[in-house]
């Protein structure tokens, strides 16, 4: 589903977000990106969602090389990825329903279908009945779940989450992770960036450790590793 081949990202301010990183996430897998803040977790997610492009190397997502994707094809590309942000990125002046419906609206889904799917997504995150609430009327945990509902409402094959539990207390964090796990069980590929290593160990799922923009440990794709050591 996702292949990074010696991908590097240098930001305009000179900071190296990611250096020569090679990694691979299989379809239907749930993977954690861990490491301290600034280690490159967010950069990996941005490169996956085409919010940034690699300065060197290649990033292939869902069989598409992100470097060669024309700008006009980016919207359709992003519709196949659900993104959950630490700060939710909800539209605060719009009710929950509108927020969750947004990915369907931009995709031109018929209104009836939107109604059905938004309710289903809200049901999955346990927020059915909160459609008319404004995001700021909800608790932080509920806001995060609205963000998750928005990410999954269009049933994307890939879900990425950047510190989705960063602002949540441990109980809520576990609940959110269980939610992700349920999506994985129905075939969604999931990449979660988090610094909460205890939670990751508890779930016993694969972990890609980043440090100063480098991929650590044995997760390096053997082929890429061979080329890198040559």
């Amino acid at each position: 589903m996702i292949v990074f081949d010696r991908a590097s990202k240098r930001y305009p301010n000179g900071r190296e977000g990611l250096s020569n990183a090679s990694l691979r996430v299989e379809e239907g897998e749930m993977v954690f990106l861990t490491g301290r803040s600034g280690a490159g977790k967010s950069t990996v997610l941005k490169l996956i969602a085409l919010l940034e492009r690699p300065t060197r190397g290649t990033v292939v997502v869902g069989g598409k090389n992100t470097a060669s994707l024309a700008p006009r094809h980016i919207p359709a590309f992003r519709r196949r990825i659900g993104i959950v942000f630490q700060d939710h990125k909800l539209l605060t002046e719009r009710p929950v329903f509108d927020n969750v419906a947004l990915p369907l609206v931009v995709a031109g889904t018929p209104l009836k279908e939107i109604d059905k799917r938004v309710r289903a997504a809200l049901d999955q995150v346990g927020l059915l009945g909160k459609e008319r609430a404004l995001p700021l009327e909800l608790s932080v945990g509920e806001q995060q779940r609205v963000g998750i509902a928005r990410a999954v409402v269009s049933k994307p094959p890939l879900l990425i989450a950047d510190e989705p539990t960063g602002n949540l207390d441990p109980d809520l964090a576990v609940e959110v992770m269980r939610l992700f796990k349920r999506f994985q069980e129905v075939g969604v590929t999931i990449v979660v960036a988090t610094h909460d290593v205890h939670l990751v160990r508890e779930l016993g799922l694969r972990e890609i450790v980043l440090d100063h923009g480098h991929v650590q440990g044995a997760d390096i794709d053997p082929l890429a590793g061979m080329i890198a050591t040559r």
Partner: protein
Amino acid sequence: MSLGLTSYGARHVQAFLASLGRLARSPFSTFLTLIVIALALVLPLGLELFVTNARLATGGFANAIDLSVYFKTDVPLAKAEQLAKSARARAGIAQIDVISADAALAEFRAYSGFGAALGVLNANPLPHVLHVHPASDAESAASLEALRSYFAAWPEVDVVQIDAQWVTRFNAILEVLRRLLVIAAAILGAGVVAVIGNTIRLEILNRRGEIEVTKIVGGSNGFVRRPFLYAGILYGLGGALLAWGIAASAIGMLAAPVATLARTYGSRYTLVGPTAQDLVLLIAGGVILGWLGAWLSATRHLRSIEPRA
């Protein structure tokens, strides 16, 4: 297919209603913008109405470029009528009226108020006159001049008079105003594009966060731009309607005094307001300019807003 079209239409309706709602939610600033647009549109419209009314008010005589052919006093009426008959055969003449000296005197006696004084005269001092009405295709200065020299060449004719110079001048003034109207419309139209473009730019900056999120979830530039285009169209439409209202009420306020003024000239002329055609032109102009301003602004500024997570 029909489902696709329906949802496409529904999305447009949705974007339209969203834009309308957004404008309605900030009525004061929307109204200020509409006023600026309306003022820019009402000026060319006002000029257009002025030219139309001036043409109509003077239409009765502006088209009546007549030649008066005065015979020498010793020319008998039979001769005058014979000459009129031969002139009627000539091209470029719509009508010739022969006014005999007696008829002219009778008319003069009736209308001038000198009736009693005229009784003192033993003989009629007036000549026979031909009123020549040129054909409508012969009203140019050159053909009028040709007509004049044609009549002047007759030995029986004393004087040929054309009272057309002021008409020519007046028509020239109207032509200048008409050109001014085109120039004003072009300049003010550019102004409307700029005003709407700037309004849309501010709106885009205000909604930056929303635009970013929309792009993150896969909204295309076209999708993000659509409500702004509708906003531009609504601004143009609202401005045009307001301009029409301003022009119509100005005409309404002027109608009575203008009619009074016209009556003092013995005219039954009344002011003509904006027509349905003016309204259609105004709305089309407003909508196109609004769309253009919004499109230029949105295309330029939306490109610079890319999501940065």
